[in-house]
């Protein structure tokens, strides 16, 4: 079960990288992240985590409601 949690975490990690890279990086004339891209990645990661937490909270509420019906 711990292994499963680690896998879920790594999947989330890989998802964030993929999404935020796609959203933030569109200039491939330099190797380094520009400061704009850097900020974008930070914000994008933060947003994804908050989004994910909010979905989780609503989903838990929904399940609790269903279970009590």
């Amino acid at each position, binding site marked *: *079960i711990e292994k*499963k949690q680690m896998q*879920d975490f790594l*999947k989330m990690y890989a*998802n964030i990288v993929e*999404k935020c890279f796609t*959203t*933030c990086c569109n200039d491939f004339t330099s190797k380094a992240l520009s400061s704009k891209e850097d900020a*974008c990645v*930070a*914000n*994008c*990661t*933060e*947003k*994804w985590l*908050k*989004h*994910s937490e*909010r*979905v*989780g909270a*609503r*989903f838990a509420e*929904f*399940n609790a409601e*269903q*279970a009590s*019906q």
Partner: protein
Amino acid sequence: MSFLGGRSNANASAVNYDKMEMAVTELDTVTDFFNRMVSSCYTKCVGGRYPADGDLNKGESVCIDKCVAKYNEVQKKVGEKLQSRGAAAQASGAAPGSGSAFGSL
């Protein structure tokens, strides 16, 4: 069981019920459904735009709440549709219409 939005069905055999209960409550399945909801709602409510900061704004937050509610609704509807169509029976190789393995969800 609430996860798949169905109701228990007295016609379903106990054996099938148990098997599906197991499969459904398996962490993998719940995680897969949840991850798809996260992704779908991200696309609808947050994604794509270049983020101005790291917080969810009011509009995004409200959108996410409705999005989760609607996603769960769609899940129920599709589940009922599959149930009424006996899709589970087909998928499990049973004669279509013969049983209601999926009815037990």
